[in-house]
């Protein structure tokens, strides 16, 4: 066990996953990931090309170019940086390139805020990238490695984004048990991209796709995203076999006989566990659902799990203005065809790094118990 920041946990995963090309642009709170990688290379601990590009847009562009040559690539960003390279995520996905990107979640400006919420990653929900959220630095480390295995699978070939809350994970030292290069090699086969830039097989990559082909190619992407679900399950299982660390698309925590549950993504899940423990001690039948994988959205599993409860509080560390939190949209839509629908309340918390406290969770459970509470409530805001 080592004490590692989220930065170090991700950078170590990248190093030990034999990544060939990294391109990145610094931004708080992502910078240290790529600073560490640059130092690994400078010290000869990592054999990799690092391209210090002039913007996030060029970061993703450069790894698209490299990935199209069939080498393993990595980039990282957050907040405004993700907004800047937003254009290229659908390109990476449409070109079917298995690029892994770490997002140290940061809010969107204005006002300028370097602090964490999930809008940067969630706003990319329709961009065609696999998206995983992490609760701890261990999970960030493991998810980065698993992301390569998932997105490089021949039935998938899509980019993947691994989200870890900026500062709350990225800058926090906590115990991490990293995997070494040998272990990762036995788990993660070498990348073998069939269609790549190679003068011996001179393919054209990225042609103009008119109305005669666009939908077919989009359908292929959709199919790949659906395939990813099975690949993710299988990868989680294989990972558990070699590490003993278990991950699920959706994790249930103390949901046995629960009537009311809250649903969380990312680092706030940890604090949510504590409040569930406390309320259980007080005799409340409460539980917690942690959504790890956001794209592909695990609709069927979630439907099965959530149909068991009477009341669900979906906690969103983001806001889709005029429509509530993004996670709540997705959760509600997947429950639409249930006969007995649970009551769903949406809680907006922690925007722009506002601490999501123990008391916030108490308030949320209290509001969940109140039949007259609003459909969407902002918690922890001074009104």
């Amino acid at each position: 066990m080592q004490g590692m920041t989220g930065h170090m946990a991700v950078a170590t995963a990248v190093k030990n996953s034999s990544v060939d090309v990294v391109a990145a642009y610094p931004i708080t709170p992502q910078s240290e990931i790529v600073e560490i990688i640059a130092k690994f290379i400078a010290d000869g601990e990592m054999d990799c090309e690092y391209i210090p590009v002039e913007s996030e847009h060029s970061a993703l562009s450069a790894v698209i170019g490299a990935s199209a040559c069939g080498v393993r690539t990595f980039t990282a960003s957050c907040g405004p940086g993700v907004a800047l390279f937003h254009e290229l995520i659908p390109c990476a996905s449409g070109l079917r390139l298995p690029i892994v990107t770490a997002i140290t979640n940061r809010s969107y400006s204005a006002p300028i805020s370097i602090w964490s919420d999930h809008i940067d990653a969630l706003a990319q929900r329709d961009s065609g990238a696999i998206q995983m959220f992490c609760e701890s630095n261990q999970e960030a480390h493991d998810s980065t490695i698993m992301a390569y295995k998932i997105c490089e699978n021949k039935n998938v070939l899509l980019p993947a984004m691994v989200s870890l809350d900026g500062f709350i994970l990225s800058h926090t030292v906590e115990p991490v048990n990293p995997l070494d290069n040998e272990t990762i090699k036995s788990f993660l086969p070498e990348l073998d991209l069939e269609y790549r830039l190679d003068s011996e097989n001179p393919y054209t990559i990225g042609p103009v796709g008119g109305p005669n082909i666009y939908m077919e190619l989009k359908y292929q992407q959709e199919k790949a995203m659906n395939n990813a679900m099975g690949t993710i399950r299988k990868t989680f299982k294989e990972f558990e076999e070699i590490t003993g660390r278990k991950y699920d698309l959706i994790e249930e925590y103390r949901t046995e006989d629960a009537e009311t549950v809250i649903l969380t993504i990312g680092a706030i899940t940890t604090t949510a566990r504590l409040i569930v423990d406390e309320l259980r001690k007080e005799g409340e039948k409460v539980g917690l659902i942690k959504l790890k994988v956001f794209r592909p959205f695990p609709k069927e599993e979630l439907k099965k799990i959530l149909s068991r409860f009477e009341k669900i509080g979906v906690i969103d560390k983001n806001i889709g203005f005029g429509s509530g939190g993004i996670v709540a949209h997705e959760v509600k839509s997947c429950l639409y065809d249930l006969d007995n629908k649970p009551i769903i309340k949406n809680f907006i918390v922690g925007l722009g790094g506002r601490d999501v406290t123990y008391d916030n969770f108490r308030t949320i459970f209290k509001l969940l118990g109140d039949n007259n509470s609003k459909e969407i409530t902002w918690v922890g805001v001074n009104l």
Partner: protein
Amino acid sequence: MKITDIPKEEYLAPGARACAGCPELLALRLALKICGEDTIVVAPTGCMEVITTIYPETAWRVPFIHVAFENAAAVASGIENAMKRKGKKTNIVVFAGDGATADIGFQSLSGAIEREHNILYICTDNEAYANTGKQRSGTTPYGASTTTSPAGKYSIGKPEEKKNMPFIVAAHGAPYIATASIGYPFDFLKKVKKALSIKGFKYLHVHAPCPTGWGFHSKDGIKIAKLAVQSGLWTLYEIENKKFKMNYKNKKIPVKDYLNIQKRFKHLSDIEIEHIQKRTDTSWEELLEHNNKKILI
């Protein structure tokens, strides 16, 4: 270079959907002959990308990638590093239009030059956004009427000067910068060949008239390219290791001989043409001065 020195191999298949008589397509076709088969082409969005790669047809016989409009130099940076990993010496060549070079792609171009990637970047300049309907770009010359700088009762066409991209690239300190014209293919191809022999970021800016955008007959593209050079409105030079050298010093015709045969300049009054003539003469003198001193700045 003699005509028989130009390889017979065609790396662009026929069937591309360029307008008839497209000098820009010719620039690609000829440059590729020098680059050869061990070449990866990167193209940003633009006429050349669109007309060569309409699914399911591609004209490219060398590996080709298009990603977006503003990022060809960044994509090429990634490819260069991936090839380094693979230990391959493949030529990495960008064919970009003027908008993708001087305007929207300027940032990624500047970054790639500064990082000294081993790339040949060829800007084929038809002085407008020809792909999207001939809107003005940063390299549209003064006085040209375009769809977003139309001539009218209160407008002489584009009221600003043409952005001097080669000098801007030169200010970055790239090891080889050259201008060329499709009207002078031997000079152009010599420069492609030289550029490929130099390590680092090479920038070639090729003047390529656009029959549709500029308003002239499809048969006249080469002729008009030559007139641009002969009038001094387009100049041929190279900057190798910061040494400046003019490759064409025989300015012999008035600018009006070039302007008057294009629809985009038809509206210009004698006063405007006189202004352009004066400014061209001044720039020409400046260029000669650079040439005499063998330096740019």
